[in-house]
């Protein structure tokens, strides 16, 4: 493919036709702030925080939606650009209830990061949040539209990536807001609680309600793993706080097969892990009842009985059922145990069920 050349901040750069100014700048280590930009979804150029100056153009251009052209001369660092970006951030701050003291996104908020980056002490405009009630109608996702900056990322992931087609803008102008049809709460809509909007939200407008007050972003440790539910094998991050899983998040960096997407089971179906009804000790039946036992006792019991049955009726009178929810290593060992230690091929699992 023919490369084209352009200049960004005085640096000669090669680019592929069709790339945007933002993509090319980031590839070359030039940072441009963004809010509404979300890779893999339509370019909307809505928030204007990524504006740049292009030589020969009267207006500043949204770099996220501006395709490169040959000989283009771009500046991302002029006072005019920085002033415009600062203005956008101040307006967004002033139009919402961005109180980091009580915000779950504190420390993980793109608006907060920009306020800090542009060294804004306070906005020059009066702070006038719209005064929406906070949606706490379900246990999974909490929405506070007073913290919404109308970037539309939640709408685009819902429609373009998950294709659940639940969220959209409603109303116009200063009353514009995001939500399911007919202004319904999530729980009363056809939302399937995949939680993609939670991961996509740059502020604290849409948060995981179950992990509220369960650890600050900088206290959480993430462990990447493979989801234990269906066979798609989604890559997910278990978020730990003090040795407990407090939430599950997707990460686009983990790539295939799910590119950060999860479903309701992967995201909100992990309560069983720390459930109080988990078995904690081996149990042995005695006089019709199950009683607690030591591992040593349990192993002896099983080994003695199995050996006795094998001696009396032959190995084919024993069978083992493995599990499609256990790991490869465990399935391998289990069938090896049944075949090599017990001596029968009576081993199967629930693939058929």
């Amino acid at each position: 493919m023919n490369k084209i050349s352009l200049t960004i901040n005085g640096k000669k750069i090669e680019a592929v036709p069709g790339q945007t100014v933002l993509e090319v700048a980031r590839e070359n280590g030039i940072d441009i702030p963004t809010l509404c930009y979300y890779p893999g979804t339509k370019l909307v150029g809505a928030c204007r925080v990524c504006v740049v100056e292009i030589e020969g153009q009267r207006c500043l251009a949204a770099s996220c939606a501006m395709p490169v052209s040959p000989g283009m001369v771009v500046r991302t660092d002029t006072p005019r650009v920085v002033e415009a970006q600062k203005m956008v951030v101040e307006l967004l701050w002033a139009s919402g209830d961005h109180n980091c003291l009580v915000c779950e996104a504190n420390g993980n908020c793109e608006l907060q990061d920009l306020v800090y980056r542009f060294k804004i002490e306070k906005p020059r405009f009066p702070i006038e949040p719209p005064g929406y009630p906070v949606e706490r109608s379900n246990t999974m996702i909490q929405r506070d539209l007073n913290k919404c900056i109308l970037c539309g990322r939640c709408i685009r992931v819902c429609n373009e990536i998950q294709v659940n087609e639940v969220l959209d803008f409603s109303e116009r102008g200063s009353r514009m807001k995001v939500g399911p049809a007919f202004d319904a709460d999530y729980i009363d809509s056809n939302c399937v609680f995949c939680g993609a909007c939670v991961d996509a939200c740059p502020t604290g407008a849409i948060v995981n309600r179950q992990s509220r007050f369960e650890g600050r972003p900088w206290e959480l440790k993430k462990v990447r793993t493979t989801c234990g539910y269906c066979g798609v094998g989604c890559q997910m991050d278990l978020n730990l706080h003090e040795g407990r899983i407090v939430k599950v998040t997707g990460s686009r960096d983990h790539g295939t097969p799910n590119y950060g997407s999860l479903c309701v089971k992967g995201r909100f179906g992990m309560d069983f892990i720390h459930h109080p009804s988990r078995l904690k000790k081996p149990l042995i039946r005695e006089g019709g009842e199950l009683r607690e036992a030591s591992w040593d006792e349990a192993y002896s019991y099983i080994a003695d009985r199995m050996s006795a049955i094998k001696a009396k009726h032959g190995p084919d009178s024993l069978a083992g059922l493995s599990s499609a929810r256990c790991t490869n290593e465990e399935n391998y060992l289990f069938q090896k145990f049944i075949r090599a230690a017990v001596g029968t091929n009576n081993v199967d699992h629930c693939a058929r069920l």
Partner: protein
Amino acid sequence: MTVAGLAASFGSGAMTNSLDEIEFADVILAIGTNTTENHPIAGSKVKRAVRQLGAKLIVIDPRDIALTRYAELWLRPKPGTNVAVINGIMNGIVSEGLHNREYIEKRTEGFAALEEVLKKYTPEHVERISGVPADDIRKAARLYASGKKSSILYCMGVTQHSTGTDGVKSVANLSMLCGFVGIESGGVNPLRGQSNVQGACDMGALPATFPSYQQVANDEMRARFEKAWGVSLSGKPGLTVVEIMNAAHEGRIKGVYVMGENLMLSDPDLHHVEESLKKLELLVVQDLFLSDTAKLAHVVLPAANFAEKDGTFTNTERRVQRVRKAVEPPGEAKPDWLIVSELSARMGYGMKYGSPREIMDEIARVTPSYAGINYRRIERRGLQWPCLNAEHPGTKFLHRDRFTRGLGLFAAIEYKPSAELPDGDYPFYLTTGRVLYHYHTGTMTRLSRGPMERYPESLVEINPEDAWNLKLEDGEFVMVTSRRGSVKAKAWVTNRSPKGTVFMNFHFPEAAANLLTNPALDPIGKIPEYKVCAVKVEKAAADILERTEAPAKVQAAK
């Protein structure tokens, strides 16, 4: 199941292509898969293909699942008539000359016999069997054959029949007929229902095969494992799950060791399962919870779950991916691999492993398709088998230039009715499956706040016309009865169910659908016929304390 059918046709029992490729198919035929509920992330890929890349979707399903909203063409056959419908589509393709003659000639065998059988399955004949209009069958034939890359997705709606293996071979026939096996974004793609069902099969947790589908009855293959494991091994293929239960019932099986399965909700005809388990001299159950199966055990062993141990899962597209330990197991619970190896030592067969990583290294030594897989290579991104050596990049799609078995094998398959069909006494079809918010026997999702908030109890999906005839309102209780048992649950009056068919899930023990299902087995795959049995449906009185609110919050799926 899938393993048996696809292995016969192609020589390899797994999804031929990759999940990412679905998005770039130009025609997708989804049969017997409620993808958006059972494999939501794969479902999103199908929906993106349609909405954003203009793919044409054909859905074949008796139920009005969410995917039908995205479909160019929706065929709604009577439950249990898949084989007839696919034969009808193939008849349409062949009679209009849309099949790929060059591919059939060069890459396959057995076509003549198939062609002979297909003659009788004219779209009109198939309409009489399945209720699908003949014109729709022709349209499906033209649309499927018109694609450059047509992909078939299927799931338990094809396999869980007494003719399940026939169903799998039929979709394999259809794909080969148009030359779509062995190309990117084409193929025959079974979506596996559990995190490691592919891996459990690959690892030889099957009665007739060692790891990598090496036959126990084959002397040479068995000798290989005898050498690797240092013992002599039985060459007699073992019994499958349902056969084990039957043998236990007859007293031929005396002891069963169950690792992480809840037979008391997942198996067909639960009364029979319970009787069988109670006859055992030794039942050992290793699980996270005191499941209904564990309650019958002589010994219960507390196991760790996927977040409490290291290991690997193999996903539906043959990709081996890491499972990582995040938290400690509760109390004295231990990872299954450790329990099995410690128990084995007590049985006099030592298996010493320091970590799952070492077990994987042994797997790679005895499993040719996993030979190139180790933890270091899959740290950041999983590898798809076959991965034959340390340099092999893994395999995105199978059968590129030749089938695993050499030539693709067409199977000439006749339609056979389901083992039990509605009649005067039991006039409804019952079909079963999962719902979005729950998983299998529900032991994990029923303990989770979110899924339980959205779907707190079992619902029987019934068509509004049937509900009208039964004078039944949404949210009232129904008694569903088959020849094997009765179950009471709340009705969800919905057009998702076709007239004459009710749908139940099997997630809730208080309304266990598998008390009703028919244990008739597919003769080859030994899969029970979960998707079709005959029931009667009656309005039932609500017990005192049981409220009869409409299940308003469960509209989600459609």
